[in-house]
């Protein structure tokens, strides 16, 4: 099979195309930073998860230590069950506190892990016992409004 000039140009074209795909997946996407090959699963149950989304970050001390893998509803306890993939390099003590925070005023919501002082560590598949639900802004506002209203009645 004789090689022609045409093959050369098509070769260049395919190389450029694959190069663009590599650029997209490595530099634009997070394929290179997704080296959480050895991750383990933790679960946490919340009364209210607010606007938490699957694939959202799990942070501890502000560092992303995992991703939210699944959110489901437990029909026995009427709680939200959040399953998280945690990077295998990081372990957390048994009395870790899982809360739902919002980054910034309008930012995305994430699970924050506040570390306790227990000597024993959480094992893969464990359920985090202590959780704090998302702050629902409407509830806060209504509490404020009603407390002000009751104060006004007392002053009369």
């Amino acid at each position, binding site marked *: 099979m004789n090689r022609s000039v045409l093959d050369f140009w098509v070769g260049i074209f395919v190389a450029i195309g694959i190069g663009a795909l590599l650029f*997209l997946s490595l530099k634009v996407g997070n394929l290179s930073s997704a080296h959480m090959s050895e991750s383990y699963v933790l679960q946490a149950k919340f009364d209210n998860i607010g606007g938490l*989304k699957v694939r959202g970050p799990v942070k501890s001390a502000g560092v992303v230590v995992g991703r939210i893998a699944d959110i489901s509803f437990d029909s026995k306890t009427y709680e939200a069950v959040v399953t998280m993939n945690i990077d295998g390099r990081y372990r957390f003590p048994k009395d870790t506190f899982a809360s739902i925070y919002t980054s910034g005023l309008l930012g995305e919501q994430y699970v924050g892990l506040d570390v306790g002082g227990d000597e024993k560590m959480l094992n893969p598949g464990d359920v985090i016992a202590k959780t704090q639900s998302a702050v629902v802004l409407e509830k806060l506002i209504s509490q404020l409004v009603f407390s002000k209203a009751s104060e006004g009645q007392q002053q009369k």
Partner: protein
Amino acid sequence: MPDLLSPIRRLGHATTERIWRLGFATRFFFLLLLQSGASFRRIHLTIREIFVSGVLSLLIITVSGLFVGLVLGLQGYETLQRYGSTEALGILVSLSLTRELGPVVAALLFASRAGSSVTAEIGLMKTTEQLKAMDMMAVDPIARVVAPRFWGGVISMPLLAALFSAMGVLGGWLIGVVFIGVDDGAFWSQMQSSVDFRYDILNGVIKSFVFGVAVSLIAVFEGYDSVPTAEGVSRAITRTVVTSALAILALDFVLTSFMFRGTS
């Protein structure tokens, strides 16, 4: 009362004509798939078509991708600035390019750059009775002429769309980071943390592949089905561009509603 009935008759004729063409296009597609073996066994035919439709489209794809990225960078910065979140420029540029603009605009350009020329080529071959001559020599024109052009387009399209997206991101980076002065690290790291490989990039590639199949099929079919006159060929080329554009946008809506249904 022939005058009253004639518009209805014309409507009926037009409808049956369309349905007939749709049926013929479907049969043509299956014939094409059946005859595709030859275009891979004699790979140099397909490589020639990749050269014609892919390599020669490189320039227009690269330049327009760069300009789309530049415009996205400018407009995105203008809006994001109001909310004080200009670091999110990278997210805006990369997500809109990999999910939508890359595949769609690249496919529209590809349809008008490569699809029209394929239609013109096949239509002219039909007009000058080259296709009939092949048939006489027991060479199936679908296997020899149509299938390589189809597969050339299908292979080129995802590569061109990826190139378009990559150039667009570079354009957005050029405007945002180099000219306006958004922080370089924030630009890339915010982009990387929110663009997912499977969810965003792979879905974009799937989209561009589907568009490649649609555009190539429309282009070869319109050429093969064209009326063998100068006017007929020119009409077929117009139909290729118009039908391709409509098919791309409609398919994009359908694919988007399947792929990105409110999970993020």
